[in-house]
């Protein structure tokens, strides 16, 4: 039986850099023996001392993990394809481990060869590995807004295989969005942003699940929406929504990855319940009109990419449990001087939300709190929602 074998790049030093080799064998074990004969040293890479395939080596026969078949005793036939995939930083799950997740995002099952290939630059990182990649696949992240910040955040989460990405967005794509909002293109002008965003994200990565929340987030629906996710990312474009999302994330016990932009400036931080919140930093909104919006004052398109990428990075760190997050630090970015600074922030015991004697124990009227006019769904969006 001539079996075509995929050789992973770390093993190619044995095969004179060939990606595929053909060997003879009637079972997986025989194929592995043949590989050792033709490429001495191969057995040391795929077998442990007891001559078993260790958990960090995944072997796929025609895209099926051999654990799910008969292991190394699985018989092979002419023309079969075998792939040897080392999971450098961890092991595969127990064979047959499954749960009730949807087909597009099986949660604790082994990664498929396609996923291993797609995410290989992440999987080879010691901070990610196959286990980290599965954590990304299992993660549910909610992004408020699919515009300047929400766009790049969603894009990088989708590319990395974050399994469930929720988007909250009610607006339509405007021509003036295209200077910075990377998920929307010229032909999308007039479409709902959430549909445009969903299409682009699924085109980038069809393995993910995009959940559409086609409505403005309000005090009436915020808790229900946020409670379905692990992490919330703030890409809102107004103070009222920022206070609403802060309060709802805290009350739901969720980590909030915050970011904001204006002109050449960016701010980013991470609020974890018990470690301070937006109100600890800014107890009151500024008087209406004192801080302009991007529509009023402008924003450099590229700064949305900087801050959005930082937010996406903080999401990855939260999911993977690596590094030092921006919890208790406010990152201030001035793109004109290209200075990045952080200042320490902490929970305020007198904070009305997360302090010792909270007075905000449920969501309030945020338009009144901020003195801003109620958010209105544009007429062109009303017809499409």
């Amino acid at each position: 039986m001539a079996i075509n074998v995929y050789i992973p790049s770390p093993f190619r030093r044995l095969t004179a850099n060939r990606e595929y080799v053909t060997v003879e064998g009637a079972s997986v074990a025989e194929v592995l023996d043949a590989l050792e004969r033709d490429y001495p040293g191969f057995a040391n890479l795929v077998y442990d001392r007891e001559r078993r395939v260790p958990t960090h080596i995944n072997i796929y026969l025609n895209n099926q993990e051999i654990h799910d078949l008969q292991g190394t005793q699985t018989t092979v036939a002419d023309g079969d394809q075998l792939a040897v995939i080392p999971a450098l930083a961890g092991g595969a799950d127990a064979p047959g481990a499954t749960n009730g997740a949807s087909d597009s995002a099986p949660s604790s099952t082994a990664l498929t060869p396609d996923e291993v290939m797609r995410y290989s630059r992440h999987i080879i990182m010691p901070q990610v590995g196959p286990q980290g990649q599965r954590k990304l696949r299992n993660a549910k992240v909610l992004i408020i807004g699919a515009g300047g910040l929400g766009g790049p955040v969603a894009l990088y989460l989708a590319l990395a295989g974050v399994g469930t990405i929720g988007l909250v967005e009610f607006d339509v794509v405007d021509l003036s969005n295209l200077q910075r909002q990377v998920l929307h293109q010229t032909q999308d002008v007039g479409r709902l942003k959430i549909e445009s965003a969903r299409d682009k994200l699924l085109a980038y990565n069809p393995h993910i699940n995009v959940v559409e929340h086609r409505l403005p987030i309000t005090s009436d629906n915020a808790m229900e929406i946020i409670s379905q996710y692990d992490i919330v990312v703030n890409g809102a474009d107004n103070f009222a929504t920022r206070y609403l999302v802060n309060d709802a994330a805290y009350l739901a016990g969720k980590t909030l990855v915050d970011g904001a932009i204006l002109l050449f400036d960016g701010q980013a931080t991470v609020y974890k319940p018990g470690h301070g919140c937006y109100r600890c930093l800014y107890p009151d909104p500024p008087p209406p009109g004192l801080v302009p919006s991007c529509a009023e004052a402008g924003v450099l398109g590229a700064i949305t990419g900087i801050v959005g990428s930082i937010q996406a990075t903080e999401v990855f760190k939260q999911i993977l449990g690596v590094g030092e997050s921006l919890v208790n630090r406010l990152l201030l970015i001035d793109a004109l001087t290209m200075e990045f600074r952080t200042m320490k922030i902490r929970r305020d015991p007198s904070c009305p939300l997360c302090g010792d004697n909270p007075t905000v124990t449920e969501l309030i009227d945020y338009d009144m709190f901020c003195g801003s006019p109620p958010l209105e769904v544009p007429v062109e969006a009303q017809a499409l929602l």
Partner: protein
Amino acid sequence: MSGQRASTSVAISLNGERRTVAPGTTVADLVPSTWRRGVAVARNGEVVTRGEWSSTAVEPDDKLEIVRPIQGG
């Protein structure tokens, strides 16, 4: 001579600009009244919570920074 000067004024920096203020000046005194609502103040790289503004006196060589929130997304 220099000791006398130190007792009559305190040299600080506010948003990168050098300023001298009277001894006993607090963080609250440094924030313009229009900005009392909606800003954060950091002293030497640490945000001073709003409740501590009026009890936090600035000291010589303090670096104070008034940070405005931004809302764009």
